């Protein structure tokens, strides 16, 4: 799975992009988020922030959206363009 982090979140995590292999039992956005937060430290704080938005394959996702190793998942703060 390809993971992307943008803006303030990328800076907090010190990482813009990574590839991961999902462990058994991680099949939804909520489970992916919890798994990444379990890395602890800044990951736990940044990913448990309720304002974080998540997109799966470039479409906005919800906690129930399914994820597989073939997906691109992006984490980012509320948008501020225009």
């Amino acid at each position, binding site marked *: 799975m390809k993971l*992307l982090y*943008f*803006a*303030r979140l990328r*800076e907090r995590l010190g990482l813009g992009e990574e590839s991961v292999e999902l462990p058994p039992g991680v099949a939804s956005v909520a489970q992916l988020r919890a798994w990444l937060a379990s890395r602890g430290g800044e990951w736990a704080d940044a990913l448990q922030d309720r*304002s974080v938005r998540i*997109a799966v394959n*470039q*479409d*906005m996702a919800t906690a129930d959206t399914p994820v597989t190793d073939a997906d691109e998942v*992006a984490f*980012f*703060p*509320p*948008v*501020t*363009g*225009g």
Partner: protein
Amino acid sequence: MRVRVQTADFDISAEIAALRAGKPGIGAVASFIGVCRDINDGDSVAAMTLEHYPGMTERSIEAIIDQAIARWQVTDARVVHRVGDLRPLDQIVFVAVAAEHRGAAFAACEFIMDYLKTQAPFWKREQTPTGARWVDARTTDEAAAARWASDAPTGR
């Protein structure tokens, strides 16, 4: 191309001319230009950097334009949004909507801009005298986008 995300500046005359070219049924063009201010939340802003999510940003704006075309009698629309380093007075974003009549053009232009502000993945980081900071999303922008959900569609 209806949607472009680019570092280069844009020429609104050329954009509007391209939008209208070969479409004599157009009777109205409404446009909006967002520009870089030198002040935000009480602090002076010397410069800003805009970041986006290549691919998703363009797709999300295309989807917003599709919604506008489905809702109003709109002939065509285009959006240009800059990314990278910008300074006060610089142009940031351009939205233009062409329609047979002005009512649809005005409404769709405002709708596209309100939705872009709250849905298209762009993030601003600004340079202030106390250092660089990420701009926070505004609840007023959420409210501006939300009001379109309750407004009755108009086909003018």
